[in-house]
């Protein structure tokens, strides 16, 4: 009995030694395998994403969660600049997220930023934002951003006006959108309408800061209209006399102008008779 017991103890000791040995071996093998670098294809995971329309059914009511996960994944994906043709599926990826969770606002915003600034595809940015507005008609942010991109990136001031107008029709839009709208009208060189819009902004402004901004814009528009008119008169003067007038009042005396326009503050414009250049007596934004 005694011998049997010691045999059992011996085998137990053997097993424990084997246990420690195997533990040590697999832990060191783990370190070894960790040191082996395994090749990965950047962005290869793109292939796993089917259309959002079908994917929604496969989520069993957890489409919002899946939208979150794909959105998080998409952010990582578009942070890796080593992926070739990474923008090829941009619309596809973000349309899936939008499909899975149409009221999730961030993906529209971020997708449009990536499309506009990273991919340089303004049409796609506008498409994503249009989708955002279509599914969230109460969100003024999407037409506002679309207008901003159209104005800043493509300098398409007419398109920008359309988007700003859409944003202005939505409740809760901040006053700056109306000012951007007026600025877009001015930049599309529709001075009469720009003057009228800025005048309305000035008259309805609730604080002095906005009044001042509107006033500066009004000054700028009036000065642009006046200087354009004076420049045309100067050109006619030069055609007839072969030189620039010595002073602007000569334009009135010669009959090219009915009267000499003055700036919004009632001051005369500065004229350089050597170059024929006319400018405002003050920088409009520093009044």
């Amino acid at each position, binding site marked *: 009995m005694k011998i049997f017991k010691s045999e059992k103890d011996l085998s*137990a000791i053997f*097993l*424990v030694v*084997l*246990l420690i040995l*195997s*533990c040590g*071996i*697999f*832990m060191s*093998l*783990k*370190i*070894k*395998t960790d040191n*082996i*670098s*395994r*090749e*990965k*294809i950047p962005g*290869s995971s*793109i*292939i*796993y*994403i*089917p*259309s959002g329309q*079908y*994917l929604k059914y496969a989520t069993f009511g957890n489409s919002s969660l899946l939208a979150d996960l794909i959105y998080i994944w998409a952010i990582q994906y578009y942070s890796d600049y080593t992926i070739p043709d990474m923008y090829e*599926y941009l619309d*596809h990826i973000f349309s899936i997220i939008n499909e899975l969770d149409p009221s999730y606002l961030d993906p529209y915003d971020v997708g449009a930023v990536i499309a506009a600034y990273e991919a340089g595809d303004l049409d796609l940015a506008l498409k994503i934002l249009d989708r955002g507005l279509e599914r969230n008609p109460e969100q003024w942010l999407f037409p506002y951003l679309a207008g901003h991109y159209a104005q800043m990136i493509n300098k398409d001031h007419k398109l920008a006006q359309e988007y700003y107008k859409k944003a202005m029709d939505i409740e809760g839009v901040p006053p700056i959108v109306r000012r951007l709208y007026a600025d877009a009208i001015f930049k599309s060189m529709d001075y009469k309408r720009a003057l009228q819009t800025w005048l309305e902004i000035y008259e309805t402004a609730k604080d002095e800061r906005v009044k001042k901004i509107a006033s500066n814009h009004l000054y700028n528009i009036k000065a642009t209209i006046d200087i354009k008119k004076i420049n045309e008169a100067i050109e006619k003067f030069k055609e007839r006399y072969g030189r620039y007038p010595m002073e602007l009042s000569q334009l009135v005396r010669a009959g090219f102008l009915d009267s000499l326009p003055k700036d919004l503050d009632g001051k005369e414009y500065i004229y350089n008779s050597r170059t024929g250049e006319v400018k405002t007596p003050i920088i409009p934004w520093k009044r």
Partner: protein
Amino acid sequence: MKIKAIALNTFKEAIRDRILYLLLFFAAVCIIFSRLLALLTVGDRVKIIKDVGLTSLSLFGALMAILMGTGLVFKEIDKKTIYTIISKPIHRYQFLLGKFFGLVLTLFIMLLLMSFIFLALVFFHTFTIEWEMFVAILFIFFELCLITSVALLFSCFSTPILSSIFSLAFYLIGHTAWGLETLIKKIPPGLGKTLAQTLYHFLPDLENFNFKTEIVQHLDIPSEAFLYSILYGIFYTLFVLIIAVLVFRKRDFI
């Protein structure tokens, strides 16, 4: 010989289990479903079939190992057949190893069946037999062996339900433990970092058996990765089996 006899008996018992065929059926459905899923994707369809197919093999193989492995020893104790076995001149480690190899043989056959369906589907699309797929399948088999040993260990002292939960947790930990590496990087040097590093190296890393992505995308795999992964699988399985033997030796059936 005794181990072989128990193993063959375990195999015969396992292939009569209905749950095995249910899982095989669902695995086949999933593999075939990959064809439909491929239709919905943008890009390479065969890739989807391969990915879904290999994942089904791995996932359903793991479920088979867990659901059957956790009942292996428990059933013998519950039905009191263990008394007849341990009263014979047989060591307890022989009994456990017999059970282990019996289930491993069952899983091997099941994996072959699932692989056949999967490779047939791939062949239907590419008209070539992609032999490299067998490498991925072989490592799935090593993973299943390790999971079987874990299921067997829990089966020695716990009920099948709890054992299944523990084994599933092992499976999940094994596939997510790599996340600890990120945590370790953020821990300042000291006792905490050392403990986290030890834990990281001790926890199972089932990703060592995951060559699915590389195989499907035809990426180069260093040969030492194969070697070390196989050795890792063998020694981790041995480690778990020794614990199972130690636990089982301590159990008193009389």
